[in-house]
């Protein structure tokens, strides 16, 4: 089925927007680009290779196989190496490592394809801090023991700006024209956040903290998961349009969901988990031009000889002796097999039902509780940055948000490098919060995607078409786990986190919230589970 330009723009950007955009030009002929990455036909490959036989001399014996080279799989591999355990491999189906945290690079600068920042961890997150230390990102500790990150890796000011009715303003919350009542409600939201930041359960646990495994499971907090964030805001009497927008933006930005789709627990988690103590600012962001691709590349470098790219796990078969894994090298089309003792399953949880033999026949109920939403990300390569239309417009920031748009706006890759003139790469994010978003996304070609992005951005930047030389797209069919109502605390995560016949699950899905810290946590957790059973040093 083919859609008209107006139908597509309406679906993505809304009707009023589409009407005005349709009058403008849709010229993209001078712009290059392609849809990159994320193989869409994995399902196809899996079906095609069902029950294939591995040639007898294509088998190898290993202690551990890690399936999936996202942050979770890479962190596990990194941890193994640090513990001097070397009898493992990591299989990654794509030709590039990193999963949703991967990045790209041209001759000028790196740019993210997905994840782009990590908030500075609290001092209690010692494992994560040891990674930051190893990467040489830290410079000592503050008086109260909190980690200090080198200035050049902390998001450079100005961090955010928002485009509203023709003008750019500082910050994300729209302060211009805010009424007394708007500000009162903002203040009230801060008080609510403050309440939860200070809240402790009887064992002294925080309500919201990273990793989620350390959050209190007291019913007073977990009951928040039973309503949506929209309902919570309503119950608390929040009506301010700009405040609701702000909260909605937070959900779309972090989870790819709208307010009405997000659990109130997850909504508050966003606001509370990165605030150290009452009244403190949210933790600063660690970021790089290539976003979390920096972590990916660092981890990958440490375990390069253990990673096998273009290697798609096809079947995982637990048996008496251990686990057999068959995988396909998508380049050579060769089928290979591994006899392993343990598997770290760091691929998305929903894929377990296609990969693990027992799950194929009898899928556990919890598997289908793990729902994902789709996103697309565009990298726009500009020969120069757009000019502000008004002298008083707030200047280009790191994160540039369009108040009236369904997109999340764009992040400027050159910002962190201090490059303020000329060439730039803008990374544009679009969460497909609606039902059927994935199908809609995959029905569009490059031309149509480019039109959406350019029509959207030209509302703020009249000159964007002329400045753009190239646009590449990444379609994330299963970008993020959805922390919808009644998922995070309904028991599914707990069940899925338990190893199944020597298969240890590590994907960030297990947290119910797609974050670096969670992927890292689960990667390391599976390593300790395995190494406790198998003390370090016993590997070859």
């Amino acid at each position, binding site marked *: 089925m083919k859609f008209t330009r107006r139908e597509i723009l309406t679906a993505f950007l809304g009707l009023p927007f589409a009407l005005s955009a349709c009058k403008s030009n849709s010229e993209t002929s001078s712009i290059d680009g392609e849809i990159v990455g994320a193989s869409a036909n994995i399902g196809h490959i899996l079906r095609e290779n069902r029950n294939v036989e591995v040639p007898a001399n294509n088998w190898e014996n290993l202690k551990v196989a890690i399936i999936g080279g996202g942050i979770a799989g890479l962190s596990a591999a990194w941890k193994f190496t640090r513990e001097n355990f070397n009898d493992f491999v990591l299989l990654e189906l794509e030709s590039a490592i990193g999963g949703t945290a991967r990045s790209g690079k041209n001759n000028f600068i790196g740019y993210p394809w997905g994840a782009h920042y990590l908030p500075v961890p609290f001092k209690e997150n010692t494992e994560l801090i040891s990674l930051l230390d190893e990467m040489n990102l830290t410079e000592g500790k503050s008086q109260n023991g909190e980690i200090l990150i080198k200035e050049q890796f902390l998001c*450079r000011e100005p961090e955010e700006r928002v485009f509203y009715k023709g003008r750019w303003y500082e910050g994300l919350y729209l302060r211009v024209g805010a009424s007394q009542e708007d500000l009162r409600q903002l203040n009230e939201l801060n008080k609510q956040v403050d309440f939860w930041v200070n809240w402790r359960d009887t064992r002294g646990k925080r309500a919201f903290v990273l990793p989620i495994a350390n959050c209190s499971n007291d019913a007073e907090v977990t009951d928040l998961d039973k309503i949506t964030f929209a309902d919570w805001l309503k119950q608390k009497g929040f009506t301010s349009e700009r405040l609701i927008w702000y909260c909605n933006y937070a959900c779309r930005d972090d989870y790819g969901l709208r307010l009405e789709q997000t659990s109130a627990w997850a909504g508050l988690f966003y606001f509370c988990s990165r605030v150290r103590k009452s009244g403190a600012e949210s933790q600063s962001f660690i970021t790089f031009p290539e976003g979390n691709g920096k972590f990916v590349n660092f981890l990958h470098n440490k375990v390069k000889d253990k990673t096998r790219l273009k290697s798609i796990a096809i079947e995982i078969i637990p048996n008496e002796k251990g686990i057999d894994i068959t995988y396909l090298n998508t380049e050579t089309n060769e089928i290979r097999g591994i006899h392993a003792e343990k598997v770290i399953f760091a691929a998305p949880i929903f894929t377990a039902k296609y990969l693990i033999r027992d799950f194929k026949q009898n899928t556990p109920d919890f598997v289908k509780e793990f729902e994902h939403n789709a996103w697309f990300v565009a990298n726009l390569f500009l020969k120069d940055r757009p000019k502000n239309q008004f002298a008083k417009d707030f200047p280009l920031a790191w994160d540039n948000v369009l108040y009236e748009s369904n997109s999340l706006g764009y992040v400027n890759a050159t910002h962190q*490098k201090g490059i303020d003139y000329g060439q730039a790469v803008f990374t544009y994010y679009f969460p497909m919060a609606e039902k059927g978003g994935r199908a809609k996304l995959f029905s569009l070609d490059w031309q149509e995607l480019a039109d959406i992005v350019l029509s959207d951005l030209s509302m703020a930047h009249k000159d964007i078409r002329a400045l753009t030389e190239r646009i590449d797209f990444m379609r994330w069919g299963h970008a993020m786990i959805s922390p919808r109502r009644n998922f995070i605390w309904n028991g599914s995560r707990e069940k899925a986190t338990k190893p199944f016949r020597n298969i240890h699950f590590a994907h960030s899905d297990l947290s119910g919230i797609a974050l670096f810290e969670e992927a890292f946590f689960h990667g390391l957790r599976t390593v300790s589970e395995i190494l406790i059973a198998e003390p370090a040093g016993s590997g070859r």
Partner: protein
Amino acid sequence: MNRTPLLFLNVFIIATCGLIYELLAGTLSSYVLGDSVTQFSLIIGIYLFAMGVGSWLSRFIEKHIAEKFVEIELAVAVLGGFSAPLLFFAFAKLSYFSVVLYGVVFGIGTLVGLEIPLLMRILKDELDFKDLVSRVLAFDYIGALVASLLFPLFLVPKLGLARTSLLFGMLNAAVGIWGTWLLLPLIKKNVNLLRVQGFIIIGLLLIAFIKADYLTSLAEDALFTDNIIYAKSSPYQRIIVTKGKTGYALFLNGNLQFNSFDEYRYHEALVHPAFAALNANPKRILVLGGGDGLALREVLKYPSVESVMLVDLDPEMTRLSKNLPVLAELNKNAFEDSRVSVVNADAFVWLDNTEIAPFDVAIVDFPDPNNFALGKLYTTRFYNLLKAHLKPDSAVAIQTTSPLIARKSYWCIIKTLEAAGFSVKPYQTTVPSFGIWGFALAKLEPFETPKKLSENIERKFLNEQTFVSMFDFSADTSLPKDEEIEINRLDNQSLVRYYEAEWRRFE
């Protein structure tokens, strides 16, 4: 009704307006482009020629002469009336300003050239030819005299260029509207439509007249009291050089960078203390910013200097300093010196990406931190990057804005330098064009405030006494005791916020 005398009044007004537009264009162009002889001569020539074109074109108007006359009046009202604001705006925003300028002059000239022939044809039925020519031309020239007297004596000083042009645009429009009554019997077409158009145009001109201050502040009218002798927008900034009674001045994005009459005070104070703070003979010098070449001039006075690397963002700026005679003369052809090499790059990015042997002296001369892109050049990160290009005993001098006007900003920079591990001696001096101006002398090792300047170096301003006294701060410029001052980091850019708050008080 005998309308003839009233029509002569029209001739008079039209003539006055016509000359006013010509004078406006001439004044405006010599004002922004400099070289008034050439500009006036060109404008008069083009204008008169265009009038000739207009007169000639009038023969092609055969019917509806009265309507055409009214329409032309309204067109002159629009084009002439808005000419000055339009030209200011074009000058501020466009790089092909002269095309717009001569185009507008030609357009007005052509329209004005149409007016008198048409009027004469309208009047020809009422007067005999001898009378007609003598009276029309007499009124025409009287109008010109009145215009040329009013313009310098009253209009420019009292109304300014933009309002003058708008005022005369309204007069032209009034003539047009009035014509719809005066020439009513001759008008065949829809007279009401003409009147509505006329009133709309007057209305617009009136609004613009009331808002003229705003319009010109959008442009640069109010900014420069002196003649502009050079103006260009580079991709990075708008560069303007003016010439006034006191000398030449350079503006970047409207901010004064130097005035030739006292710049030596600034540049001597910026450069020589760093050399005085050295123990060894300086050989390798780094100049960051300072594309005007004036700091370079001071640096090159030291015979021991073997090489100077100047890193300035804007190739247009360094090219201009090398090639514009007034600037080259001021910087003593510093850019021709074989010891100098120029890199056009953002100093922040350059320091971060460049591996090069360390320097003995670094002179840091950036514009004030009035935006984030400049603010990053005053952060701990920047000073740490700079550190990596110094030797343990190198000396650095930095321009650090006014400790009087922007006291907090000044001390914020000093503290930031200290936080980056520099030992700092703050100092200040008076530069009349700027006021009290602040600098920082910094080294990586603790050091004594230097007391002696290098010998045998020619200086106009600094002598031993002034040099020593520069390191003293008065009560109103010293470190504020009761205020907390943050360190300027990339991730807070506190300085830009201090600076904006402090300078806003003076706007």
